[in-house]
């Protein structure tokens, strides 16, 4: 009775239980055919593994420090549920008919207007009407709800740690988490100025179901930046 292919391979790989390994070793001492087969399989394995090693290039290294940095949750994320709940309840209270919250906020703004001290968050140079800044997780997606009949994303890589989106269309709404920013741009034809941290190595931008821009490591979508380093990504 000779050894099976399974037993020979396991013996070679040290994957037999101790008792069976002893039996196989004893059999190999007395069976020249199985010994020869084991040697053939061993030589074949060495040759195959050597061939596989020809596929090795110098590859991009993965650094432990980078892994540790990317795995750290943002400090605010542990409060995220509370923040979302508070904002949700606040929104509900604001939306109720004859809401006392709305009346109270209106009175505050009216008082500020009277004093001429209302601070409108608007970029005077670009007349931005809507915008958001988000601290991204390791892999971040910006998803436009839909394509537009015109308009584009003007994307710039920055040393700032936040993803920033600004637009002149005041109707645009945003919703975000650490891995995703949703932009409700239905009906908009405006441009969007987007700043992406250079340190963000995994980034995707979508319009509807279509991926319109990606970054994986140092690899960016083959859209060429203009002379100022800005990428123009059509939203059409």
């Amino acid at each position, binding site marked *: 009775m000779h050894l099976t*292919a399974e037993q020979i391979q396991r013996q070679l*790989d040290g994957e037999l239980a101790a008792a069976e390994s002893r039996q196989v070793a004893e059999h190999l001492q007395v069976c020249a055919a199985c010994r020869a087969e084991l040697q053939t399989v061993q030589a074949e394995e060495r040759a195959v593994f050597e061939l596989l090693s020809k596929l090795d290039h110098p590859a*991009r290294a993965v650094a432990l420090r980078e892994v540790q940095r990317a795995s750290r949750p943002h400090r605010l994320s542990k409060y995220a549920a509370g923040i979302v709940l508070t904002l949700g309840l606040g929104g509900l209270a604001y939306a109720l008919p004859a809401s006392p919250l709305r009346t109270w906020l209106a009175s505050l703004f009216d008082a500020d207007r009277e004093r001429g001290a209302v601070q409108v968050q608007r970029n005077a140079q670009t007349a931005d009407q809507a915008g958001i800044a988000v601290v991204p997780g390791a892999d971040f997606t910006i998803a436009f709800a839909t394509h537009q009949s015109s308009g584009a994303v003007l994307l710039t890589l920055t040393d700032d740690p936040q993803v920033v989106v600004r637009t002149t269309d005041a109707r645009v709404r945003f919703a975000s988490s650490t891995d995703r920013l949703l932009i409700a741009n239905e009906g908009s034809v405006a441009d969007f100025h987007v700043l992406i941290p250079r340190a963000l190595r995994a980034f995707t931008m979508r319009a509807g179901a279509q991926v319109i821009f990606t970054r994986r490591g140092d690899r960016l979508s*083959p859209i060429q930046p203009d002379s100022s380093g800005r990428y123009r990504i059509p939203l059409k």
Partner: protein
Amino acid sequence: MTGSAFDAQCAQLFQRHAPRLLRYFHRLTGDSELAADLTQEAFVRLFRRGTLPGHPEAWLLTVAMNLLRNVHKTRTRRTRLLTFERGAAAHADAARAPDELVDDVEQARVRRALRALPEREAQLLLLRAEGYSYRDLAVALELNERSIGSLLARAKRAFRSAWEEPCT
């Protein structure tokens, strides 16, 4: 387990297993950037998990392979991008030394032989070449652990025979 003890164990796992995980995905996909991204993300998820799984090596492998499956699912556009990039790289390689070109031919032959195998056999072979245990192979590839030896023997034979086939 305290946070710092967990971090230290993860760091140890990283030192031991990141290189072979990286090499495995590089050999499998031929894409060093993708291999690095998959390896990094698998370890990021391990760190975020907060506790070590029962079989960390098999867990890391399974996570990274699931990530790769997701990449394949959404790859129609990416494939075009990669083809574009590789095309550009091939032009850039035009002035390479003859020795390097011989290496490229050898490499293409090995890759062709690997592609001739059913995907699971190719994965089995590459993972075993990295020294993964039969148990890890069985978990990651959803195989019966008791038949790994004969599957490996078959995969090696099929690979050798595909490699020896003349290029057409």
